[in-house]
């Protein structure tokens, strides 16, 4: 903070602020206590005239940093953004005036517990009058003014401790993408990236490109009219990839080491001679990449886990992938029985073989593509000889979407029989070959036993997602996650990326061994910035979906490259240039930051200090919240920007009966919920002081203890849901905060304070009625237990 800072505070009187509050007094607070060098009032600050005033002051050098004392920081965001200038916002409109605009709620302290209306956060309006200028008693006016004064103090304090973030000099722009896996997904990702102008290297473990799809005779159609199987199109794709000038293909190769971060991943590619067994390394080289797409596909489920379906008992029981191999070998000629090469007159497809099942060794999930795949395979027989009987035994036919239903209908019209049933046993049929199947026909409600020449088990997909680095620390309290456990141990657990990250060698898995995103709205967001999963490694899917998925992953990889090149954060704080700064001389090497970072952004250097990787960082601040010695901060968000705001609030004497409640609210959910509550004129305690925070995970317990020591009567943390269906956008932030807060009880005891003084709530963005109510409940709690004994 070498350069001289001149703070300009701009007080807007619009939207009812000027009527409800004494703007001259706010000006005085900003000047005297906020130490603003220049304070201006304006009737309509967000108008071009108002903004121009600020710009003029900035241009003339009278002001270097801006405090906008107007609406919530979520409103007029781009209006009040000035290049390279730090801006703090005092939330007078939503935070003070609108949340108190109607007939002032009498203090819950005065009539504690008696007011039902305060509990619902709404005030019975006296008449139809709903202007912002309702008459309020002078004492109510005064408490509201005090609330506003504090908002001015907080914003003026915040600005003094923040600097506008600027990109560090660590960015690297590297427009080369590493694609791991040379199947449909990998080749599509490579080709689509190359078509956008980026260079790509494909690393494929086997000797040829093509992956699973190369072993298919036909694939499920995805273009209208979706009536018949189509050529997999692998040869075309392989040749396009092979001749593309921006694509390099490394077959028979693996990744033995990946370090670095987006823009500068250092990857060691090891060439293995497939002929010389597992460890036939024939040399390696290290290359640098901007981003990584992991398209390592799946392994077909191992049918030895389903002995009841007769796979071992009869040579005429095959899996769906084995049937593809037979069809591919037959090249359109009639298929014959594997056991004795006799003609096939009847085929049974057993759907969900070892899937959608909670039995040990089975897959609990649905692989999504098998219903259509069995229809396709039944057509192989129907098309060769319509007299062949093909029966699909299913529990639900799952052919969603537009093309899916057309294909199902096409199967029906070709004479494929679909029966809802449950298979109980399959065995060898006896002398004549084939297989004997016992099943319950659920439509006719009867047990059936009959022989088929061939039985095809529609087995599922097991993801090749590498090592689940977080398998040990995820809680398994949900009963049905146990059922999925076998899927994870199906495949030999060998790392794919071999990341040197402190937090494990591969992408963390989500469920059932797949590397999917947890978020419905953000399917590509992984917890390792710049590394994206595509295709069946992310989620079970068919070829059409895998191609779409791979194209999307290429978009994300390109975006990660462009952002890393400019020091901009990736989702969800997209574009944020701030970055954790560490004061190493205070660091005790406790490793909490490295362990708690939800994104694996922090390594350790050779002296065991935390090593921050800027372009891996998502700017949530969990490291800042974790640090017991408080040496981690961001330029625009730090222990001080929040901590000093907390301390800037005026704490009235206990005799004044005006408690102070600190509310630290997650900026993505709790804060917008309060903003919307204010828009709907819901009221919350006039004694609350709300500070938005990036994530509950960024809350350092020093803020809580400092608040209590300063004489606050209560502290509330409002963050997102944690646990299995967590909604925290930084994955583990709210979980970490809840964990840390369990430890705060000791501190409270040491301070001689009641446990109720600190409370954590999970608040959703839709808790528009509930969030104010929670604050009001806290006010009543304080009324009950009395003022903090720590007030000076």
């Amino acid at each position, binding site marked *: 903070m070498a350069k001289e800072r001149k703070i300009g505070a701009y007080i807007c009187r619009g939207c009812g602020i000027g009527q409800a509050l004494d703007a001259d007094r706010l000006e005085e607070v900003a000047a005297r206590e906020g130490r603003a060098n220049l304070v201006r009032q304006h009737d309509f600050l967000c108008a071009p005239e108002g903004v121009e005033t600020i710009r003029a002051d900035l241009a003339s050098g009278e002001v270097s940093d801006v405090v906008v004392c107007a609406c919530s920081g979520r409103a007029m965001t781009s209006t009040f953004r000035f290049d390279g200038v730090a801006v703090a916002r005092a939330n007078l409109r939503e935070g003070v005036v609108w949340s108190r605009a109607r007939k002032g709620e009498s203090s819950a302290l005065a009539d504690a517990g008696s007011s039902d209306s305060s509990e619902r956060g709404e005030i019975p309006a006296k008449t139809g009058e709903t202007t912002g200028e309702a008459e309020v008693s002078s004492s109510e006016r005064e408490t509201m003014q005090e609330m506003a004064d504090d908002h001015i103090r907080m914003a003026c304090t915040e600005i003094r401790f923040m600097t506008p973030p600027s990109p560090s000099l660590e960015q690297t722009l590297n427009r080369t993408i590493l694609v791991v896996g040379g199947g449909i997904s990998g080749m599509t990702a490579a080709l689509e990236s190359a*078509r*956008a102008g980026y260079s790509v290297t494909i690393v494929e473990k086997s000797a040829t490109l093509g992956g699973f799809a190369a072993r298919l005779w036909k694939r499920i159609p995805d273009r209208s009219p979706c009536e018949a199987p189509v050529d997999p199109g692998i040869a075309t794709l392989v040749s396009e990839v092979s001749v593309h000038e921006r694509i390099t293909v490394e077959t028979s190769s693996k990744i033995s080491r990946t370090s670095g971060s987006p823009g500068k991943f250092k990857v060691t590619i090891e060439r293995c001679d497939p002929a010389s067994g597992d460890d036939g390394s024939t040399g390696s080289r290290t290359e640098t990449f901007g981003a990584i797409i992991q398209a390592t596909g799946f392994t077909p489920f191992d049918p030895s886990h389903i002995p009841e379906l007769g796979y071992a008992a009869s040579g005429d029981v095959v899996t769906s992938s084995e049937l593809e191999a037979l069809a591919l070998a037959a090249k359109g000629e009639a298929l014959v029985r594997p056991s004795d090469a006799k003609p096939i007159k009847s085929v049974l497809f057993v759907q969900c073989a070892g899937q959608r099942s909670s039995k040990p060794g089975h897959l*609990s999930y649905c692989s999504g593509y098998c219903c259509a795949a069995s229809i396709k395979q039944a057509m192989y027989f129907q098309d060769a000889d319509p007299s062949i009987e093909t029966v699909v035994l299913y529990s639900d036919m*799952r052919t969603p979407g*537009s093309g899916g239903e*057309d294909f199902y209908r096409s199967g029906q019209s070709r004479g494929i029989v679909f029966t809802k049933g449950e298979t109980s046993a399959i065995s060898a049929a006896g002398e004549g070959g084939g297989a004997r199947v016992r099943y319950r026909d659920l439509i006719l409600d009867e047990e059936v036993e009959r022989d088929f020449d061939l039985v095809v088990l529609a087995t599922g997909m097991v993801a090749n997602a590498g090592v689940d680095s977080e398998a040990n620390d995820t809680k398994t309290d949900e009963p049905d996650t146990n059922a*999925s456990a076998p899927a994870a141990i199906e495949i030999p657990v060998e790392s794919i990326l071999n990341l040197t990250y402190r937090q494990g060698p591969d992408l963390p898995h989500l469920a059932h061994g797949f590397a999917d995103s947890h978020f419905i709205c953000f399917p590509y967001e992984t917890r390792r910035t710049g590394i994206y999963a595509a295709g069946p490694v992310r989620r079970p899917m068919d070829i059409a979906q895998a191609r779409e998925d791979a194209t999307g992953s290429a978009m994300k990889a390109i975006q990660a490259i462009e952002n890393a090149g400019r020091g901009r954060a990736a989702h969800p704080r997209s574009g*944020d240039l701030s970055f954790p700064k560490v004061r190493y001389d205070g660091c005790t090497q406790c490793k909490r930051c490295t362990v708690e970072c939800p994104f694996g952004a922090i390594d350790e250097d050779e002296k065991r200090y935390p090593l921050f990787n800027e372009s891996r960082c998502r700017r949530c601040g969990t490291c800042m919240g974790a640090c017991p010695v408080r040496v981690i901060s961001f330029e625009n968000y730090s222990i001080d920007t929040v901590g000093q705001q907390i301390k800037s609030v005026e704490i009235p004497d206990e005799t004044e009966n005006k408690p102070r409640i600190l509310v630290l609210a997650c900026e993505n*959910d709790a804060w917008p919920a309060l903003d919307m509550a204010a828009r*709907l004129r819901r009221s919350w305690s006039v004694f609350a002081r709300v500070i938005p925070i990036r994530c509950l995970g960024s809350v350092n317990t020093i803020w809580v203890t400092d608040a209590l020591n300063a004489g606050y009567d209560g502290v509330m943390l409002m963050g997102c849901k944690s646990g299995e269906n967590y909604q925290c956008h930084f994955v583990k932030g709210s979980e970490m905060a809840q964990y840390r807060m369990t430890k705060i009880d000791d501190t409270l005891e040491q301070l001689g304070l009641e446990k109720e003084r600190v409370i954590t709530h999970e608040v959703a963005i839709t808790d528009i009625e509930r969030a104010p109510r929670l604050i009001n409940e806290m006010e009543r709690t304080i009324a009950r237990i009395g003022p903090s004994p720590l007030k000076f």
Partner: protein
Amino acid sequence: MPEPVPGIEGAGTDQGVILVVGGGISGITAALEATEAGKDVILIEKRPFIGGRITQLYKYFPKLCHPVCGLEINQRRIKASPRLSVLTMASLESLRGTAGDYTASVRIAPRYVNDRCTACGACAEAVQAEFNDEFHDGLGLTSADRSHAASDDSSGDSSGADPSGDSSTGPLKPARRKGAYLPYPMAWPERFVLDPRIIGTEDARRAFDACRYGAIDLDMTEETVELKVAAVIWATGWKPYDAAKIQPYGYGRIPNVITSLELERMMDPLGPTGGKLVRPSDGLPARNVAFIQCAGSRDRNHLRHCSRICCMVSLKQSTYTRERYGDEGEATIYYIDIRAIDRLEDFYRKIKSDPKVRFIKSKVANITADPRSGDPILHGVDTEGYRRYSNPHDLVVLAIGMQPSVGGDDFPFEVVVNRDGFIEPDPRNGAIFAAGCATDALDVNRSVQSATAAALRAVQVVNAGTMPGLESRRD
């Protein structure tokens, strides 16, 4: 900070612009993914706010989380994207030219509120006229209301009721909004709208006089702007199949038959029922709810295709009865196949384990209403064992099918569609790329995936125009 992001290979600001049509989750995603990679994007949306259908959903499956939560992140991303412009109340009228070089003619309807609006709400307080609130998807409208959408009695507000109460509130009335309004509390752009029906009335003057900021512009007229764009992402989403066309189900005739979309609005704590799950006929609690799958879908007489989301929607909505009525709530799902693919199966398994949720494999034949109780009675045959049933329920929810918002002949350009009306990827489409439910019946997750892929296809066109040596797209 909005520093100008240099374009790829230093192409600077003269790189081509991507036009995204439709501001729902797919359009927003496509626009953001492209602009966050350094592209110039214009997003146009027909409604006065962005977010599309997801803004009207109570919860998402399978996490049962709230859709506006992800929307808040996206709105934040938009506010932080200086190279993305958003035009609301705008629609694409025509598109001329070829891939890489299109001229788009965009029609912008008058909002009668300019960008001086602070969203203070004074205009809404001043205006007297009220209209049915379209945000609530027609919930509470009778068939008579539906045919006379504009009525102007100014009562009929039933919001704010206590969701836990059992007391009868009488027949459900549609939610009303003022003639000057913010479409919903999180609407972005955070700017009010004047209903065109008040223009020329005393109310327009009242709104004008109430605004202290000069934001009401009663002289605003429809305008058309021409935009030079390199590529177009078509993300116009879906609309529900017209439930009244499924004659045997009595939608519009039997008041206690509603659509799955209407149920979402009913669950909104700020919606027409204040979040109460009730019967439209009498406002009594709807504890025993029937869900009819494939309402309009997988049916040659209606929509041929499977709408994909409806199974998951009904599984999700079956939890609403529990949420409101605990052990007294029960749900029955009449289905053909439950399509809960991949890990959505986990959710299906969880719902199946609830003894209060029944599954009956049956295409319901027809619905009658008990004249005394108003109970809808479902008639049909349970396919598993062929047993006839006549089951009374408190409320019937039609898991209504999804069809493309824009039908066959209504595209402002030539584009290849399949027989269900969804856009097919085809070289003949030039640089027009469909995203989300314009391509197929998709859930939110798959729409976002589709939109991200569409963003790349558009980026390829833009880059082809700026990167030396980069061939134009061939397919």
